[in-house]
């Protein structure tokens, strides 16, 4: 089923690498304490090849790649460059060899300019002005224009990624490593990126492309190595596979399909935002402008959008961590509560799950039972508080155990600290903690970010089930696959403005992309398209 390349049969104990490969990693092992991130991994890339490194969250992709780049050192194993063994002691050495890396989380300095940022990544920069000119030229040449004297803090996420890429391009790399590059791009920006990468490949530069976006990988890549739990499980040509077969290789078993949603007649409105305005509260924040939305009982409304377009601000406005200027801007279960705080909104039956589990949704150093107390409001009859403000620890403990069992939270001890749990397990706990309160409204931001496939499936199913039971569920997500899986209606947030919500079955990736580009212009196009389709009598 999977077509194995010739590379992995070569003797792994050979002292020299094969000259046909630009870079080869053999028998790479990396341990962090007791945890093995990479377990005897072999990887081989040819010049001019766009090679995908696939695997779900936590499979060990980022770790492997950091070792190629010198940010980490392997516990065991060898790396060959153009057939010769090398030790990549640090990123400077990697750059000397001709390896460039664009990280998933940018290594940028907000207070510094574009030129200064790039200068830091290069050695031997003597003339900053000459560098600025080179940046302007090269960036324009490759279709990723940059203004050298701009301060990074003022740039959008897409522009920041360009800095990372141009930084690598200036050093004329032979291997460019990209870690989840399209996670922060609109579909149109992603297309531009692919053009740039294909041009690089045609010039002889190899690209190591880390992603879990299977359609992209199929479209772009010539070869791939698939990791699961730190080991290589397959080497295939993605263009010959289907997304489903790739997914199976990544996860190892069929991920059970989410139970299909029934067409549902939505009930009364549970959550309602009416022209909500929220000024930006910091230099890097996004202002919300006249945001309106409606979530009815029994439905899941998903808000799509690329990171940095106001999602956190919207979440804070919904949860009450930031209050609106008038009560009627936010209405929960029919009660205007725009000027009320978090606890009051929870008292109305709302529950919230923020994007960051550690530090926002849970206190990392606190045990799970203590974290339960975090979102129990103090007014309800089932409150954790008794007379005089004394906490009922027994009940908190009970709840923690109940949540852990119901949502399959795997933990080492009965009541561990939150930070010792894996991402997926902690997320299951945080979501479960809210669902345990049987809320009428649930607002969740990035429900399965950084979570393994099994936990993600469980969480998504729980969200659908909650809606099926009659609650109104609002999901903010950057993962379009997830959105299309669970949403009844989809809206798009862009630069602090929210598009109207469209039924999921009339939305496609292209339309979402258009809306991401500019909410208002795009929605007219969509409305136009909808009218055409209605006229045709077709349902999509």
């Amino acid at each position, binding site marked *: 089923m999977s077509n194995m390349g010739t590379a992995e049969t070569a003797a792994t104990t050979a002292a020299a690498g094969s000259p046909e490969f630009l870079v080869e990693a053999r028998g790479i092992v990396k341990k*962090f304490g007791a945890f093995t991130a990479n377990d005897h991994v072999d990887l081989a890339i040819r010049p001019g090849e766009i090679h995908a490194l696939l695997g779900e969250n936590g499979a060990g992709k980022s770790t492997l790649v950091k070792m190629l780049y*010198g*940010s*980490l*050192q392997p516990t065991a194993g060898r790396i060959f460059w153009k057939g010769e063994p090398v030790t990549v002691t*640090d*990123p*400077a050495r990697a750059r000397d060899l001709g390896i460039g890396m664009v*990280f998933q989380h*940018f*290594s*940028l*300095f*907000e*207070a*510094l300019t574009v030129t*200064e940022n790039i*200068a*830091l*990544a290069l050695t031997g*920069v003597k003339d900053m002005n000459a560098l600025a000119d080179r940046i302007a030229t090269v960036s324009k040449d490759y279709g990723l224009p940059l203004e050298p004297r701009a301060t990074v*803090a003022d740039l959008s996420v897409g522009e920041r990624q360009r800095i990372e890429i141009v930084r690598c391009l200036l050093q004329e790399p032979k291997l460019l490593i990209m870690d989840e590059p399209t996670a922060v791009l609109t579909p149109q920006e992603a297309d531009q990126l692919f053009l740039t990468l294909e041009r690089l490949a045609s010039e002889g530069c190899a690209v190591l492309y880390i992603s879990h976006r299977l359609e992209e990988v199929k479209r772009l890549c010539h070869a791939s190595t698939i990791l699961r739990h730190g080991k290589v499980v397959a080497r295939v040509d993605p263009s010959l596979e289907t997304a489903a077969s790739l997914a199976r290789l990544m996860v190892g078993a069929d991920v059970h399909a989410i139970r299909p949603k029934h067409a549902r007649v939505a009930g009364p409105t549970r959550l309602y935002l009416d022209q909500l305005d929220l000024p930006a509260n*910091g*230099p890097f924040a996004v202002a919300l402008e006249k945001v309106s939305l409606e979530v009815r009982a029994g439905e899941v409304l998903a808000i799509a959008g690329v990171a940095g377009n106001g999602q956190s601000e919207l979440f804070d406005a919904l949860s009450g961590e930031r209050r609106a200027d008038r009560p009627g801007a936010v209405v929960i279960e029919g009660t205007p509560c725009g000027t009320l705080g978090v606890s009051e909104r929870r008292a109305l039956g709302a529950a919230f799950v923020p994007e960051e589990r550690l530090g926002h949704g849970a206190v990392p150093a606190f045990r799970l039972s203590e974290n339960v107390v975090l979102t129990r409001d103090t007014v309800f009859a089932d409150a954790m508080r008794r007379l005089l403000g004394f906490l009922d620890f027994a009940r908190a403990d009970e709840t923690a155990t109940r949540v852990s069992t119901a949502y399959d939270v795997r933990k080492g001890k009965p009541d561990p600290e939150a930070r010792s749990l894996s991402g997926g397990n902690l997320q299951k706990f945080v979501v479960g903690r809210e669902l345990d309160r049987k809320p009428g409204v649930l607002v969740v931001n990035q429900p399965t970010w950084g979570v393994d496939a099994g936990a993600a499936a469980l969480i998504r199913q729980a969200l659908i089930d909650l809606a099926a039971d009659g609650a109104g569920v609002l999901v903010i997500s950057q993962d379009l696959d997830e959105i299309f899986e669970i949403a009844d209606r989809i809206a798009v947030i862009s630069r602090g403005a929210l598009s109207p919500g469209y039924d999921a079955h009339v939305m496609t990736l292209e339309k979402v992309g258009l809306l991401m580009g500019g909410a208002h212009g795009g929605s007219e196009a969509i409305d136009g398209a909808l009218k055409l389709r209605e006229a045709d009598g077709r349902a999509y």
Partner: protein
Amino acid sequence: MDQSALLAVLLTIVTASTPLLLAALGELVTERAGVLNLGVEGMMVMGAVAGFAVALMTGSPYLGIVASALAGALLAVPFGVLTLNLVANQVATGLALTLLGLGLSGLIGERFVGQPGVRLQKLAIPGLSDIPFVGPILFGQDVLVYLSIALAVLVSWVVFRSRAGLILRAVGDNHASAHALGYSVIRVRWAAVLFGGAMAGLGGGYLSLAYTPQWIENMTAGRGWIALALVVFSSWLPSRLVIGAYLFGAVTILGFFVQGLGVGVPAQLLSSLPYIVTIAALVVISTRRGRARADTPACLGQPFVPDR
């Protein structure tokens, strides 16, 4: 006020401002690297006692200057070990440094109380220093005054125009990214902390060698804390720091001047002026800065543990 009195006041302002400027410059560099060192008061007072002691024992104020800088830097070493290598809480460690410095200096300085010190002489450049009024102010200062101004210029140039300064600012802005790019965050911060210590020591040495050439326990009287406030007040810009230091020096001297006038204002109220003005300055600068939080080095005070 006649010209000679005005001249005297201006000269005293310079002497009062210089220790603040020296100490604050050092802390500015430290904070630009992302490290908050609250131990300035402790390092300053150690510099004061070391400078005094060495100058007294050798007869040379210049050796005293060197000793004061060394003492400050040496006291910064345990701070560095704790906060940079052992990732201890920077606020608590800085406080510990201050308490240790105050205690240690009191212990060492006991035998020097009451002894007359060796004063750092003002320069006398033939011709230039004799120009009436302007001469003494601009050309008749002691070495450390000129050094403080020169250092302000140097620090400004290095931090904003040199590669070393770029790396310093990068480390203070985003230590994770700096590390990912291969820069040794710990080493850069060590250099910044030691520099800060030396400068604080130098500031203290100035107190006991030029300002009042004697040793009194706790003679820094909170100047180290004022220096910390000055760094915030200057938005981490050396040019503004010079202005701020001289403003504070002026406020301090104003107090003495008013006292000398014999007006019925209690001496203690005038002595408390620098502290009250510091509070006012902090309030003003923080309110205005609320909108542009971008001034503060983003990683200030955050511990850094490299993963290797």
